[in-house]
Structure formats: structure tokens, C-alpha cells
């Protein structure tokens, strides 16, 4: 293994959470998420030469990962899709960790129903990107990013409420 490969793998290892977040946002089953994760790593490695250190590695990584996810289509598998129920009976207000898990479960279930661009907007927003940065990443104006993000958040809010969770 050469030094570039080692350097790349070390960077991926320290930023792997980005890949996982993108895969969970775009794919709903673990199998499809794993396929997307492999695809993202492959595309990152292929594009690694284009990383010019002008931005941070994580910013560049987000861009490539999102661009991959936007045009990634799951394998056509014959299988039953089960709409998983989110367990609520074991959760109490004191159990903060369980509450957070429940909130995330609702969030990930709802976000599957958004359009691909809307997912990217929400994802970058959750990563604390400003409207300007979101626009720069996606290639749209700051104003457009603001409007689209606001619509996506409204949509997400409605979807979570429809799942029976207070928002």
C-alpha cells in the first residue's frame, strides 16, 4: 500500500461519520446503506487527486459524498419492504439517550420521503452549514438555498407529525 493510499484511508477513518450520515439519509435499509457507503468511498478515492487542500477535507468529502448519493440508485432486489414501527413504550422522559434515539428514528424515517435535493439541504443544515455555504456546495444561490431549506424543513416537520411524534 502506498503512502497516498494510507493518507487517504486515515482521512476517511477520521471522517467516516460523514459517509454514514449521508448513507442513512439517502437509503433506508442497511444493505442499501452499505452499498452506498462503498460507492462513496470508491468515488472519494477516485476523486482524491482533485482534492486541492483549498477547503477542509471534510468539506470536500461532503461534496463528493452528496454528489454520489444524488445519483445513486439502489439495486433492484426482490424483497418485501417492511414499514418498521418505531418502539415508543420503553421510552421515558428521563432516559435522554433513548429519547434521542427515538427522535433520530423518526427523523430518518421521515427524511426518506423527501426529494434528493431536499435531503442534501437538510443534511448540510444539520451540519451547521450557513445558507451561503449550502448554496455554494449545491450550486444554487443563497436565497434559493434558504427558500428550499425552509420548504424542506416544513415538509419534514409535517412528515414527523404524521408519524405521530410531537414536533
Amino acid at each position, binding site marked *: 500500500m502506498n503512502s497516498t493510499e494510507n493518507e487517504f484511508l486515515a482521512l476517511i477513518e477520521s471522517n467516516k461519520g460523514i459517509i454514514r450520515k449521508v448513507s442513512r439519509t439517502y437509503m433506508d435499509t442497511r444493505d442499501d446503506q452499505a452499498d452506498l457507503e462503498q460507492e462513496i468511498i470508491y468515488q472519494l478515492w477516485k476523486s482524491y487527486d482533485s482534492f486541492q487542500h483549498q477547503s477542509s477535507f471534510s468539506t470536500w468529502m461532503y461534496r463528493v459524498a452528496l454528489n454520489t448519493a444524488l445519483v445513486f440508485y439502489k439495486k433492484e432486489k426482490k424483497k418485501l419492504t417492511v414499514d418498521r414501527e418505531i418502539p415508543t413504550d420503553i421510552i421515558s422522559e428521563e432516559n435522554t439517550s433513548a429519547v434521542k434515539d427515538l427522535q433520530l428514528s423518526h427523523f430518518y424515517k421521515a427524511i426518506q420521503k423527501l426529494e434528493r435535493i431536499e435531503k442534501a439541504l437538510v443534511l448540510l443544515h444539520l451540519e451547521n452549514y450557513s445558507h451561503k455555504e449550502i448554496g455554494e*456546495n449545491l450550486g444554487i444561490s443563497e436565497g434559493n438555498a434558504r427558500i428550499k431549506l425552509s420548504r424542506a424543513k416544513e415538509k419534514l416537520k409535517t412528515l414527523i407529525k404524521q408519524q405521530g411524534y410531537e414536533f
Partner: protein
Amino acid sequence: MNFDDIKDAWNNDQENENIKIPAKLDQLKSAQLPVERLRKGMKSEFWVQCLVLVIVGFTPKFFYLQPQMILPFYALYSCSLVVSIYYFFKLYVFYKRIGSLSLTSKDNLYELYYEARLSIEVYKSFTYMLVPFFMVMAVLLFASVKVDGLYQRFLDNETLMLMAAFSFANVIALIILMTEIWIKYGYGKYIKQIKAVLDEFKE
């Protein structure tokens, strides 16, 4: 719950670490991006077309060709080879160039979309460009058939000539139709997928 809660849960989720990073990168393969599927299809077609060109080049070995027809046959064959090399080169450039994912999402999608469409137009014109060469080569082979007076009888019979012209037109129409169907089902769906995402950028 509000978006701050989600943000908090999102950033502290242990599940984010649950990902397997491969130890070796050369084992990684891309399979599910439209552009990779286009590439894969183009690569397979390249080899099929090379095989067809080789077979056509050996046609005079399998079928009798009158000595005076050999030169025109190979002149046409050389032209079809030059055309093929030109188009193969064009498609190879596309094959190598597309897929830079470091651009902004919108630019990346536009580039993919227009490059893919352009390559398909190149592919179509390549296919249609070869048709007349192969048709004339077929005529040369037919004109060499060793049956006494067959060719002359054919030329003297207006009905047969009309039928031949009609058959030629049909073959051309069939080639065009098959190419369009092949492109639609082989490549069109991937372009549609890219276009669908691009449309989401619209106001």
C-alpha cells in the same frame, strides 16, 4: 422535538461510527451510479464492435468476392475503420472525462447530463455512419455471387430492383429503430435518472 434536538441527536449518534472502511482500495468497485453503468455499457459495446469489424474484414475469406471487387471492398472497409477509430476515440474521451464529483452538485449533474447526451448522439451518428459502408459492401458481395447471369437478370428485372430498393430502405429503417430502442432501454434510463435530480433544482 425541534430541529435543534435533531441536530444534537444527529451529532452525538454513536451509529455514525458503525461503518466498515475497506483495508484495500483496489478491491472497491463502482456499480450503481448511472455514469458507471453508461461506462460499463460502452466498454462492452466497444469490444462487440471491434469483433464485428474484424469479422467484416474477413468476409471475403468466407464468401467469394470477384477479384475486381476486392479493391473497392477493402477501400470501403478502410473508410469504415477510419470512421470507427474516430468515433471510438471520441467515446473514449467521454469515457475517461465524465464523473468528476468535486464540482458543485448542480454543475456536476449538468456536466453528467450533457456529456451523457452528447456521447449518445456520437454513438448514434457512429452507428448510422457505418450503415452505408456495410450496405455497399453487401452489394459487392452479392454482385460476386457465382450464378450465371444472376446479377444481369436482377438488373434487367424492374420488379426485383424495386424489391431490393424497398428491402434496403427497410433494413435501414430497422437499424435506426433498433438503435433507438437499444439506446432508450440501454442508456436512456440513466440519463432520465440524472435529469430527474436536475429537475429538483428548478424553482
